[in-house]
Each structure stands twice: as C-alpha cells, then as structure tokens.
C-alpha cells in the first residue's frame, strides 16, 4: 500500500507523466505556447484525472474485469464532456483558447494509465489524490515549458493571464517587437522539453550518486 507521501512524490517527480513517462505529447506540444494556456490545460487534465480515478475506484467492485477498458473510457469520456461543457458555459474566454484541446484529454493516455494502474486497485480517496497529483505534476511541467516557450518565442511572461484571473496582466520582458519563431512552433517545444528531461535525469543521477556515497560512508563507524 502506497502512502499519500509516496503518491505525491510519484506524481510530481519520480513517475512524472511527462518528464519520466513521456506520455501525453500531443497537449505538451500544442498548448504550451504560453504559461496561461499550458497550465490551464494541465489543471483541467488534473481535475479530470482526479474525478476519473475517484469514479473508477468507487465503481471498481461493479466493473467486470473483461469490459473494464470500455467502461474506463466511457467514464473518462463522460467526465471530459462535462468539463468541456462547463468550461464553455462558465469560463468562455478560456474555452475559446483551450476548447479544441479539452476533448483531447480523452486521448491523453496518462488518464487511462492511472485509472488502470492505480484506481482499479486502490480506495477512492487515495485514487482521487493520485489522479489529481499526477495531473498536477503534468500541469507544472506544462507550465514551466509554456513559460520558457513564451519567453524565448515572444519575450513575455504570463501573457493572457487576465483571461483566467481578471486584474492580472502579463509582463513584457523583452522589447515589444522581439520574436523568435522556433520558440513559438512545435520543434522549439521538443528542444526545450529535451533540456527539461535532461535536467531531471541529471538531478536524479546526482541524488543517486549522493545516496550511494552516503551508503558507502555510513557503515564504516559501525565496522570500526
């Protein structure tokens, strides 16, 4: 049985859906042109994942093993439709930007992956938390990537944030007429994502090396 701490660490770092599992590249490339779009879609995904994990976990005793995949997909598709309609109705401006990507949450394999790997075997609260934190880990990575892309591509930070939080404004960091096409187009996203995965691997390797070194040192006093 995994604890909440382990679930959180898995979702945010160890099994991070983008950096470690490299799942869900479609939204990663498509919506990360700026922080606002990227993080918003990430949060919508986290919301759907939390709900779908919770729903599947509650119903898991009533889902025959043979048809679990169709039922999982049915549940996820229904929840995505509900999020889609609700966003269209109540956060319309954001929907205009993210609208075409919301249905894509269904196709993001990380949703089905968490339902199958976690929610089908664990209690409801833990499953909901696992889904949400996995999605939140995805949202954080999308957000960082979006921030990097809009800075490199158009020299802004948090542009378009007023759509989500009225009253706030994006920051123009570089001169107004600055523009770097590679940052805006998908290949730029691939390159930046490559750097992010490399940094994560480097940090992990350093942590492992430190642990190994500590293990080599610590037994000595006992031996002596």
């Amino acid at each position, binding site marked *: 049985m995994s604890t909440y701490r382990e679930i959180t660490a898995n979702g945010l770092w160890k099994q991070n859906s983008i950096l470690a599992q490299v799942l869900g590249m479609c939204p990663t490339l498509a919506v990360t042109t700026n922080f606002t779009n990227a993080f918003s879609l990430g949060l919508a995904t986290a919301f759907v994942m939390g709900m779908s994990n919770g729903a599947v976990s509650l119903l898991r005793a009533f889902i025959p093993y043979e048809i679990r995949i169709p039922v999982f997909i049915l*549940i996820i598709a229904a929840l995505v*439709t509900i999020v889609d*309609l609700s966003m269209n109705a109540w956060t*319309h401006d954001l929907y205009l930007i993210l609208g075409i990507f919301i249905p894509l949450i269904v196709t993001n394999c990380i949703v089905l992956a968490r339902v199958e790997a976690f929610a089908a075997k664990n209690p409801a609260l833990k499953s909901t938390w696992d889904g949400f934190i996995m999605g939140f880990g995805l949202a954080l990575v999308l957000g960082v990537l979006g921030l990097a892309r809009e800075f490199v591509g158009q020299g802004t930070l948090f542009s378009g944030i007023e759509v989500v939080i009225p009253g706030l404004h994006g920051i123009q960091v570089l001169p107004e007429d600055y523009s770097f096409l590679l940052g805006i187009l998908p290949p730029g996203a691939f390159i930046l994502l490559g750097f992010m995965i490399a940094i994560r691997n480097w940090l992990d390797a350093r942590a492992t090396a430190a642990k190994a070194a500590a293990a080599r040192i610590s037994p000595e006093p006992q031996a002596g």
Partner: protein
Amino acid sequence: MSQEQTQASTLSHDDIPPPGESSILRISARTAVILLWYCIAFTALMAATYFATKPAIEASAAAEKLQMINAVLSSDRYDNELLKDTISLPATAALGTDDSTTLYRARKNGEASALILEAVAPDGYSGKIRLILAVKANGELAAVRVTEHKETPGLGDYIDPKKDRNKTRPWITQFNDVGFEQIPVTEFKVKKDGGRIDQMSGATISPRAVTNAVRRALEWTLPRREALFALPAGQTLEEKP
C-alpha cells in the same frame, strides 16, 4: 446407472464447471447488460450537464458574435436587434463562400445603416482566410476584420490586428471608412500589384489575398445594397442567374 453416478460425482467435485456454450452466452449477456447500464447512466449524466449549461453557452455564443460585429461596426451605428435581423446568403463565388452564410443588417432609427457579411479569401499563404466586413449604406466599408486564418505566425499574420505589431494603426484598419470613391476599384490592390493598399515587405501573399477578397466582396455588395436591406428577415437571397 453406475456410469451416470460417477459422471455426476466428478462434475460436482469440479470447482469451476467447464464453460459450456450456454454458460459463455450467459456470461456474455450479463457483461453486455452491465456495459449497457454504464452507457445509460453516463449518457444521462452528460445529458443533464448539457441541459444545465445550454443557456450559458448560447448566451456566450451570441455575445461572441456581437463582439465580432462590434469590431467592424461600432455599436452607436445601430439600435436594432442585429442578431435577429438577418438574411441568409447562398454560396457565392464573388464572396468566396462555398456554403450559405448569414448577413446581418444594422439599422439606426429604422433607417439602413450597414450590412455585415462574411467573405473568404481562398488564396492565403496556407489555406483560406475568413473575413467579416461591414459595408455602410453609403457604399463605404466601415471596417474589415480577419476571423480565421492559418498564415505564418510572425510573418503573414499581421492581417489580424491582434498579431499586428503596429498597435496604433494596424494594417487592416486601412479599410476603415474607404469605398471605391476614395480608392478606385482599379487601384484597390496592394502596392506591389500597382494599387494603393500598403503591405509589409517580405509578406505580400496574405495582405494581397485579403485585399482582393475585400474588393470582390465590396463589388458584389454595392449593386445589391437596397435589395439586401429590403428582404424580410430570415429569408434567403435568391439571385437570377
């Protein structure tokens, strides 16, 4: 007799009966019914959400349309219920439309003010460029806006004022309040083609496509102005070939 007994006893010793044809059918049927129940339950959930969100979605769709119209025609130029005073136009080659479109009619104090219609430039750099135009009753354009395009980001996309670096006087505002009296129809082209509409060097294809589409749409609209205003709302314009 004894044979039958031994057969029965061996069967009873088995924990799982060998799946005969009938039990496979039974399991399949049971599973199918369960799947059906899931489908019904979640469809009901989606239907409930649909009806709960419908009014809000319709309201924002109408607001969005009005916002688009207000970008080409300021709201003090009309006082009628514009979204209801519409006629439908069939697919028209001069407008570049290959499907029927809606034309909105703006009136002020009951008098004709402007016609708002869609046009398509088929020859953008990558695909169609969709435009919305407001043609005033005096034959001038009120304004033009691009509603949909796939032009290269950072290059040809300055036809959309949101992407235009020139915020004080975006490219597309050259069409504000001009008609064929200000710019004769023969000179209603980009400068590169010998006309009078400015374009940025290096990206001529997108503005040329927009300019030509605007000229064609204006040429189509001018002789039909009175007929378009006179048609009862909700009808389709019928043209004699």
